[in-house]
C-alpha cells in the first residue's frame, strides 16, 4: 500500500515538475504567457494515461518505478515544451490520441468476437482439469454443477453482446445451457426445426430419461429383488401367460399374431435356495419360450441375467442418450433409436425406464412434426440489455467508486480481468511477461541498430565496393533465413554438449532455481544470471533486422550523399567523418525512425516462435498458451496491448519525424 502510494506520488511529481519548470522558465522569458485551454486538455489526457499506467502496473519495485517515472518525465517534458512552443503540433497529437479510442474499441470488438466464435470452451477445460475434478469430489457435486458454477463465476452465463443478431427461431435460453456440446447440438436443432419450445422439451426429456436410467443399480438387480426382478409367472386365462411386473401384467406373447413380445436372450434357471448352482441355462427361441415357461411355472424356478449384460445394456443406453444430446444427424439418431429399442425389448429389467424413453421418442416426434423451419429465414435482433459478457468485460462488475479489488474493474479502468485458468489477475501476469519479452526485444533492437547502421552508412559511403557488395549479399541471405530454422541451428551448435555448450536455450534462468529466488536478486545480478540464456534468442531476433535496417540506412544515405550540400561541405574542407556523420547521417535518419514504431508491438506478439523454441517464458509463450487453452482474457489483453503499443509507436515516430526534420509539419492545412 505504502509503495503504491509512493509510486503515485513519484509519478505525479515526475508528471508535473517539468511542466511547471518549463512554464516558469517560459513565463520568465516571455512575459505574455497565457495559460490556454490546450494546457488543461493536455494535462488532463496525459494524466489519464498516467493513471492507466498506475492502475495497470499495480505493485512495483524500484526499477519499475524509475522506469515509469522516466517515461512520464520525458513525455511530460515534451508535452509541456510543445504546449508552449508549438500548440498546433500538440493539437495534432491530441487528435491522434482521441482517434486511438475508436480504433482501440474496434480491436477489442474484433478480439472479443474471434474468440467468442472459437469452439474452445474454457469451462470444459476448467471443469475437466484436476483441480476442477477434485473440487467436485470435495463438495460432493456433479461435474455439471461444477461447470455451472464456473460459468457463473466467469460470467459466461450471460448473453454475449448488447444485442444478438439471429433468426426468429433463436432463443435467448440457449446460452444458459451448461454443456458446450449440448449447446452446439441444440443450436443445430434450432437451425433444423426452428421450434425452440419443442426442442427444449425434447432436450429435457432426454435429460430426464438419462437421469432416470442413471438410478438403475446394477447390483440391486443382480442381488435379486423378487418383486421386480423375478416376477411371478401368472396365468390370466388359461391360454395367456405373462409376468407381473410391478403389479402390471405383461404377456409373453401377443395373442393376436402369436409373436413373442418380450424376448429374452437367455434365462438362467436355478433353485431359489442356492443361486450359484447352475441348474439349467435356457436360450429362448420363439417357439420354446411359451412351453418352457408353462412347464416350469413353479415357484422354485427363477431367472437372472448375467451381470455383464445388465451393465452393458445400461451403459449402452446411457451412451445412446449422450449421443442424442450431442448429435442431430438423422442417420445417427435413427441408429440410436433402433439400438435402444432392441435393448428395451430384450431386457425386462429396463421396463421401469421404458416410460421415459417413450416420452423422449414422442418429444422427438412432436419436434419433427411441429417443425417451423421457416423461422430460420427471418432475421431478428434480440436486445440483451446491459447485462452481457462484453459489457461486463468492458465496464466490469465493480461499482464505480468502490475499492473492492476482488471484483473486475473492466477495461475502461485498465483491468483486463482474471485469467480463466489460473484465476490470477491478467494485468499482473501480462506485465510480468511483458517485462521479460521487452527486455529481450529492447536489447535485440539496440544491438541491431548498433550493428546495422554503421554497415549501412559505410556501404553507402563506399558504394559498389567489395564491402558494399559482400555485406549486401550476406545480409540478404540472413534476411531470407526463417528465424525458427536459425534458432534451431543455433541451439544445435551452440547449446549442445556434443558441439559447444556455450549458451543455454531453456528459459531465462536456471530451471532448478525457483521463480521467487530469481526475482529476489537485484536487477544487475539477474541480468548477469540471465545473460547466457539471452544470447541465442537475441541473435535469432536481430539477425533479420540487420539486413532490413542497414538496407534502409544505405538507401537513405545514398540519396543524401548525392545532395548538393554534401558537396558544399566537402568543398569547405570538412573532414570526411564530419561530412558523413554530421551532415549526411542526420539527414538520412528519417526512414530509420519508421521502423522504430514497430519495436513495441514486436515485444508483444512478434516473438511467439522464438520464445517457444527457447522456452523463454515471455509474452509470446503466454499468448500461445492462452490461445491453445482458450484463456480469452489473456489473448484479448495481448491484442489490446499490441494495438495500443502500435498506435503509440506510430505516434512517437511521427513526432520524431518533426524533431529530426523541421520541414515536416504535422498540422498540415488542407
Amino acid at each position: 500500500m505504502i509503495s503504491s502510494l509512493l509510486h503515485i506520488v513519484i509519478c505525479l511529481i515526475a508528471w508535473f515538475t517539468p511542466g511547471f519548470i518549463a512554464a516558469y522558465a517560459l513565463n520568465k522569458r516571455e512575459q505574455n504567457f497565457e495559460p490556454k485551454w490546450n494546457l488543461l486538455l493536455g494535462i488532463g489526457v496525459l494524466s489519464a494515461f498516467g493513471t492507466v499506467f498506475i492502475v495497470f502496473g499495480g505493485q512495483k519495485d524500484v526499477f519499475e518505478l524509475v522506469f515509469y517515472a522516466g517515461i512520464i518525465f520525458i513525455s511530460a517534458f515534451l508535452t509541456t515544451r510543445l504546449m508552449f512552443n508549438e500548440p498546433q503540433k500538440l493539437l495534432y497529437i491530441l487528435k491522434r490520441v482521441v482517434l486511438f479510442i475508436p480504433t482501440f474499441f474496434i480491436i477489442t470488438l474484433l478480439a472479443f468476437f474471434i474468440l467468442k466464435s472459437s469452439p474452445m470452451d474454457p469451462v470444459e477445460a476448467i471443469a475437466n482439469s484436476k483441480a476442477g475434478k477434485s473440487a467436485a469430489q470435495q463438495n460432493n457435486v456433479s461435474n455439471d454443477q461444477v461447470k455451472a458454477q464456473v460459468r457463473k463465476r466467469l460470467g459466461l452465463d450471460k448473453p454475449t453482446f448488447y444485442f444478438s443478431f439471429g433468426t426468429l427461431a433463436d432463443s435467448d435460453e440457449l446460452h444458459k445451457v451448461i454443456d458446450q456440446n449440448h449447446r452446439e447440438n441444440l443450436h443445430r436443432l434450432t437451425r433444423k426445426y426452428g421450434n425452440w419450445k419443442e426442442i427444449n422439451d425434447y432436450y429435457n426429456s432426454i435429460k430426464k430419461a438419462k437421469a432416470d436410467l442413471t438410478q438403475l443399480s446394477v447390483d440391486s438387480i443382480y442381488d435379486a429383488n423378487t418383486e421386480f426382478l423375478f416376477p411371478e409367472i401368472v396365468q390370466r386365462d388359461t391360454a395367456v401367460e405373462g409376468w407381473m411386473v410391478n403389479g402390471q401384467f405383461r404377456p409373453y406373447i401377443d395373442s393376436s399374431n402369436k409373436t413373442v413380445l418380450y424376448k429374452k436372450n437367455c434365462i438362467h434357471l436355478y433353485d431359489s435356495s442356492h443361486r450359484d448352482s447352475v441348474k439349467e441355462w435356457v436360450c429362448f427361441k420363439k417357439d420354446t419360450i411359451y412351453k418352457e415357461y408353462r412347464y416350469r411355472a413353479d415357484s422354485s424356478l427363477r431367472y437372472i441375467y448375467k451381470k455383464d449384460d445388465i451393465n452393458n445394456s445400461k451403459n449402452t443406453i446411457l451412451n445412446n442418450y449422450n449421443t442424442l444430446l450431442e448429435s442431430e444427424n438423422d442417420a445417427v439418431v435413427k441408429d440410436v433409436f433402433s439400438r435402444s429399442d432392441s435393448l428395451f425389448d430384450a431386457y425386462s429389467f429396463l421396463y421401469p425406464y421404458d416410460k421415459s424413453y417413450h416420452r423422449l421418442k414422442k418429444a422427438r416426434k412432436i419436434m419433427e412434426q411441429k417443425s417451423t423451419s421457416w423461422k430460420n429465414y427471418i432475421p431478428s435482433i434480440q436486445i440483451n440489455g446491459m447485462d452481457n459478457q462484453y459489457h461486463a468485460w468492458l465496464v466490469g462488475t465493480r461499482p464505480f467508486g468502490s475499492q473492492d479489488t476482488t471484483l473486475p474493474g473492466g477495461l475502461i479502468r485498465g483491468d483486463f480481468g482474471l485469467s480463466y485458468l489460473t484465476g490470477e489477475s491478467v494485468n499482473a501476469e501480462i506485465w510480468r511477461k511483458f517485462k521479460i519479452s521487452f527486455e529481450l526485444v529492447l536489447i535485440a533492437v539496440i544491438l541491431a541498430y548498433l550493428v546495422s547502421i554503421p554497415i549501412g552508412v559505410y556501404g553507402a559511403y563506399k558504394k559498389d565496393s567489395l564491402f558494399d557488395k559482400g555485406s549486401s549479399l550476406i545480409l540478404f541471405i540472413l534476411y531470407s533465413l526463417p528465424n525458427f530454422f536459425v534458432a534451431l541451428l543455433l541451439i544445435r551448435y551452440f547449446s549442445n554438449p556434443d558441439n559447444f555448450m556455450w549458451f543455454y536455450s531453456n528459459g531465462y534462468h536456471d530451471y532448478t532455481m525457483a521463480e521467487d529466488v530469481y526475482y529476489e536478486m537485484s536487477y544487475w545480478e539477474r541480468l548477469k544470471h540471465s545473460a547466457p540464456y539471452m544470447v541465442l534468442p537475441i541473435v535469432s531476433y536481430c539477425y533479420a533486422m540487420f539486413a532490413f535496417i542497414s538496407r534502409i540506412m544505405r538507401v537513405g544515405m545514398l540519396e543524401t550523399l548525392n545532395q548538393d550540400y554534401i558537396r558544399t561541405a566537402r568543398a569547405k574542407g570538412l573532414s570526411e567523418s564530419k561530412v558523413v556523420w554530421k551532415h549526411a547521417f542526420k539527414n538520412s535518419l528519417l526512414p530509420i525512425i519508421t521502423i522504430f514504431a514497430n519495436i513495441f508491438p514486436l515485444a508483444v506478439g512478434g516473438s511467439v516462435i522464438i520464445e517457444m523454441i527457447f522456452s523463454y517464458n515471455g509474452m509470446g509463450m503466454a499468448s500461445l498458451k492462452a490461445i491453445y487453452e482458450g484463456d480469452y482474457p489473456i489473448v484479448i489483453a495481448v491484442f489490446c496491448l499490441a494495438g495500443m503499443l502500435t498506435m503509440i509507436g506510430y505516434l512517437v515516430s511521427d513526432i520524431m519525424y518533426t524533431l529530426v526534420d523541421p520541414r515536416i509539419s504535422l498540422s498540415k492545412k488542407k
Partner: protein
Amino acid sequence: MSLIVQHIGLHLLVLAVITAILPYFFSRTTDASNKGYLIPFYGLIKAIQKTKLPWWFSLIIIQCYWLPLNWVHFIGIAIFFLWIYRWASFFEGTERLNRLIIISGLLLSFYSLLHPVYQGYTGLFINGLFELDMIALIAGLLLLSRLNKEKFLKKKYHSKEFNFTKYALQQFHKNIPARVGLYILGGLVMIGFYADFLANSTPIFVEQDGKLHTPVYTQLIDPTPSFELDGKDVPYGQIQWRKLSKEKSYFALIPYSPTDNDKYNRNFASPGGKQRDKLGQGKFVEMDGRFRHHLGTDQIGRDVAAGLVHATRISLTVGLISMGIAALIGIVLGALAGFYGNDRLLAPRITYLMIILGLVMGYFYAFVTMEFAAENARNEDGSVLLVYLIKSLLLFGLPVLFAYLSKLFMGIKFLAKPMLIPLDRIVMRAIEVLNSIPRLLLIITIAASFEEKSLVLIMIVIGLTSWTGIARFTRAEFLRIRELNYMEATRALGYSNRRAIFKHATPNALAPVFVSIAFGIASAILIESSLSFLGIGVPEETVTWGSLLNEYRQNDEAWWLIVFPGLAIFVTITIYNLIGEGLRDALDPKLKK
C-alpha cells in the same frame, strides 16, 4: 496476326476436343481396372520400354504425356472461348450476346471439369483442392475474357515510342539474380506440379502380361483404383508394388509417398546410416540403393525427400492463393479509397442504407441460415461446392440486388439526398486496426478457432490478414493518378467511375503492387511454415516443410530433418525476395541512375 491466332486456337481446340472425347471411345489401351482411360503416346512409351532405358528416363516421358493432357486442354478451352468471343463480336451491338456466350462457355468448361474423367487433371493443380481449382479456372477464364480483344489479338505496339512495360521487362531481364531466381522458381513449380511423379510409392509404369499399366496416372484419375493380380482385382492400397517384378516396374525418382511409413526404418533412419529392408523369409538386409531413403526418415518412418517434394506444392500453392486473395482485396479497397478519397463518394442515402441492409441480409442468409448447409451436404453426399456457390451468390448478390432496389425509393426526397462517405478514412482505419494486431498472433488465433484443420482455411486467413500493404500501395498510386490529366479526360468523356477505376487507372497503379505481392508471397510461405512448425491449423497427416522442421525438435540428432526442409524454405523465400527486388528495381525508375 489475328488469323494466325485463330488458326492456333482452332488447332488447339481440335486437340482439346480430341483429348476430351477420345477416352470415351478408346478402351484398348487401358489399365487393369478397364475403366476406359486413354494413355496418350502409348506407342512412344512402349517403344521406350523396349529399349530398356534407365528408370529416370520415364520422367522425360511423363512430360510428354502430361503436358498435352493438361496444358493444351485448358489453353485450348480458353482460346476457344476467346475465339468465339471475337467471332461473336462481328455482330453489331452484341455485347450482351458476347457475355452470354462467354458465360455459357464457362459453364460448359465447368461442367466438363466436373465430369469424373477430368477430376484427375484438376487434381494435378492442387491435390484435393478441387473447389479452388474451379475458382482459379473461372477467374482465369474471366480474366481472359475481359482482355481487350484488340489488344490481345492485334499487334500491341506499332510505334517505337518509349514503352514502360517493355522497358521494365528489359530491366528485369538484365537483373541476373532475379532472373536466376525466376528460373529456380520455374523448377520449383515443376517439382510441385509433378510431385506425384517425382515421389510416389506406386510405380509409374508396370508391365504385366504384355500390357503396360500406368498406376500413378490411374491413381490420379480414379478414386478407387485397383490392379489385376492373380486374376483378382486388388485395391492399390493393398498391393506391395516393390515385390511385383523389379525389371518391369518403373518407379519414380523417389520411390516413396509422403505419407507412407516404412516400418523397418522408423525412429529417424539417417541418410548415411544403416537402412533395413525385409526380404523373403523374414530376413533383414541392407536397403537396396534404389530404395534407400536418401534424405532419411522421420520418427514414424516417412521419407523426408518425398515429404519435401510434396510440400513444395503446398508451399507454392499457399503463397499464390493467399496472396491472390490479398491482392484482390487490397487492390479493390486501395483503388476505391484512393480514387474516391474522403470527398468524392456521393450517392443517395437510400443506396447506402440498402447496401448495408443487403450486406446484413447476405451475411444472414449465407452464414446464419445456411450455417450448417455445407456440413449437411457433406454428410448427405450433396454437393459442397454448390452450397459454397449459393453462399457466395447470396453474400455478394444480395447487396447488389438491394442497391438496385434502392431505385424504387428515389421518389422520396429525403432518401434520395446525396450523402458523402469518407471511404478513404474508413479503409485507412481498417488497415490501422489490422496492422496493430500482430499478424502471426492473429492468424494463430483464428486458425486455432477452426474446428477442423485445413490448408484452404489457412490460405484464406493469411489472405484476409495480409492485404493491408497492397491496399496502401494501391491507394498511394491512385492518389497520384487521380490528379493526372487523363483521369480528368475520362470524366470529361462521361465514363462511369467503374470504367475509370478498373480500366484506366488500375493498370497504371499496379507496378508497386507487383513488388508487394512478390514479397507478400515470401512472407505467406514463411507464415504457413511457421504455423505448421507450431502445429496449428495444418492437418497432422499433411507433411510440410514446417512440420518436418518441427519433428527435429523430438530428436536433435536428426540433422537431416532441420537442414533439408530449412534449406527448402530458405531457397523459396530467397527466390521470391530476389524476384521482388528485381521487380522493384525494374519498375521504379527512380532508383536507376
